[in-house]
């Protein structure tokens, strides 16, 4: 029989995970509206693959199957993978990424709660390193023809017909090709994929994520530290550099509403397992992700930097936590970084 405390607050891992999934729905709805139902197919693929991999690993490790399978954590990983991968990527890309995420990044480290790296971002980074072409084929806004997308996913039809580069990718390619005349305004102005502030259609998906994220904040599933620090730091860095030279550096609004910024801010950076946990550490961690994201987007070789930025900060998370321990009751004056 258990010891004190003898009664617990009604809360469970499952309800936390479920609410995260619910918070993703507005973004997914916008995704379907602008880019077709392919994303639902990808989510289904990733979910099935994740649950299968989870069940396999749990069975191999001799853990109670139903208890852990129903905790929802595998589904969260699966959905994040589906949402961060191009929705018209071939089916095996999503499935392979999901399997690697669940098996290598999660269960080899002991499963839920013990993985030092964000599994979804491990999947993204592995796949973009291995298949850079396939990972850069994004659907064009308005291309909602499901039959064509089905064919793209299951391999019958060449991708190019329905895909185009994202604004981030286009901008990076243009500025990197040492074309002296290329400027942010020039590249973005002529690009049909660009909408009001970010990618056409993508900005609405981002708004959906933002809405879901705000709901998560209101539900106290995530704390304000990470999203705020992430978005503020990204704004600040992008703002300063675009002030310095707005032909070479895109402005803050562009950075906020393109790529995976909003998904990252509320659903990826906020992962408590692989991130930091102290209040100060959370601020440092999220600001670090923002800085690295901006650096990789601007100077690096990959179109979006969030995955790498998150993984890089994951590496430093234990140390950040170690050196930002909040002072303990009664030790407020002398503690700080004394460890």
């Amino acid at each position, binding site marked *: 029989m258990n010891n004190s405390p003898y009664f617990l607050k009604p809360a469970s891992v499952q309800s936390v995970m479920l609410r995260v999934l619910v918070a993703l729905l507005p973004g997914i709805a916008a995704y379907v509206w602008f880019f077709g139902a392919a994303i639902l197919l990808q989510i289904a693929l990733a979910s099935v693959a994740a649950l299968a991999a989870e069940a396999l690993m749990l069975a191999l*490790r*001799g*853990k*109670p199957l139903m208890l852990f399978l129903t905790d929802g954590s595998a589904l969260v990983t699966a959905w994040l993978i589906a949402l961060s991968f191009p929705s018209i990527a071939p089916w095996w890309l999503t499935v392979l990424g999901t399997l690697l995420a669940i098996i290598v990044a999660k269960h080899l480290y002991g499963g839920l709660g013990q993985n030092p790296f964000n599994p979804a971002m491990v999947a993204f980074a592995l796949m973009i390193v291995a298949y850079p072409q396939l990972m850069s084929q994004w659907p064009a806004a308005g291309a909602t023809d499901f039959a064509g997308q089905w064919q793209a996913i299951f391999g019958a039809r060449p991708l190019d017909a329905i895909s185009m580069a994202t604004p981030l990718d286009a901008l990076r390619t243009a500025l990197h090709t040492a074309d002296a005349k290329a400027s942010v305004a020039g590249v973005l102005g002529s690009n049909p994929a660009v909408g009001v502030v970010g990618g056409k259609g993508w900005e609405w998906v981002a708004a959906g994520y933002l809405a879901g994220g705000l709901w998560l904040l209101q539900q106290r599933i995530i704390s304000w530290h990470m999203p705020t620090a992430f978005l503020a730091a990204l704004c600040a860095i992008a703002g300063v550099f675009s002030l310095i030279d707005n032909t070479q550096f895109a402005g803050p609004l562009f950075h906020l509403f393109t790529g995976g910024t909003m998904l990252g801010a509320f659903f990826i950076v906020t992962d408590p397992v692989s991130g930091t946990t102290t209040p100060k550490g959370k601020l440092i961690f999220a600001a670090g992700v923002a800085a690295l994201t901006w650096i990789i987007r601007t100077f690096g070789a990959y179109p979006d930097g969030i995955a790498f930025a998150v993984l890089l900060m994951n590496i430093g998370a234990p140390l950040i936590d170690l050196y930002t321990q909040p002072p303990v009751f009664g030790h407020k004056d002398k503690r700080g970084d004394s460890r």
Partner: protein
Amino acid sequence: MLAALLVMALGAVVLGAALGYAAVRFRVEGDPLVEKIDAILPQTQCGQCSYPGCRPYATAIAKGEAEINQCPPGGDEGIRKLADLLGREFKSLSAEHGIEKPKSVAVIDEQICIGCTLCIQACPVDAIVGASKQLHTVIARQCTGCELCLPPCPVDCISMQAIRESVENWKWKYPVFKINPAQREAA
């Protein structure tokens, strides 16, 4: 060819001289490590490690002559600490040196004791009091449970008794970890 030889010879001389100087300048005497190892050992002085006491064993470990898994009273916990201190891999207790037993103390059966003082001479920590032809008794608080007094006793009047659990020394148990019972053994 000659140039090559000269260059290498020159290098050898210069580096040799530098090293030779350093060896003299930075000579180290004594071994503070022994103290640190000795502090980890349980000080039962039982000799199960095949050394005459804890300190000799510590010296042997520091010199690299002994393995770290030869101390049964220290148990796995002690080996882990040694492994941590020395940056070596953890090894489980070597079977030839004994097994980890619950901590116990020696008790002399006063009906049988003949007062021969042999156990007094054997006790490494002077925890047995008595005199020739007089009853001996063990100071339980200072007994390390090394069992060295058992063999010399001619009448086998000494027995080891495990320390009983009381409200004072009772320990909270490891919470039952329902997810993975195998981990408890491993951890």
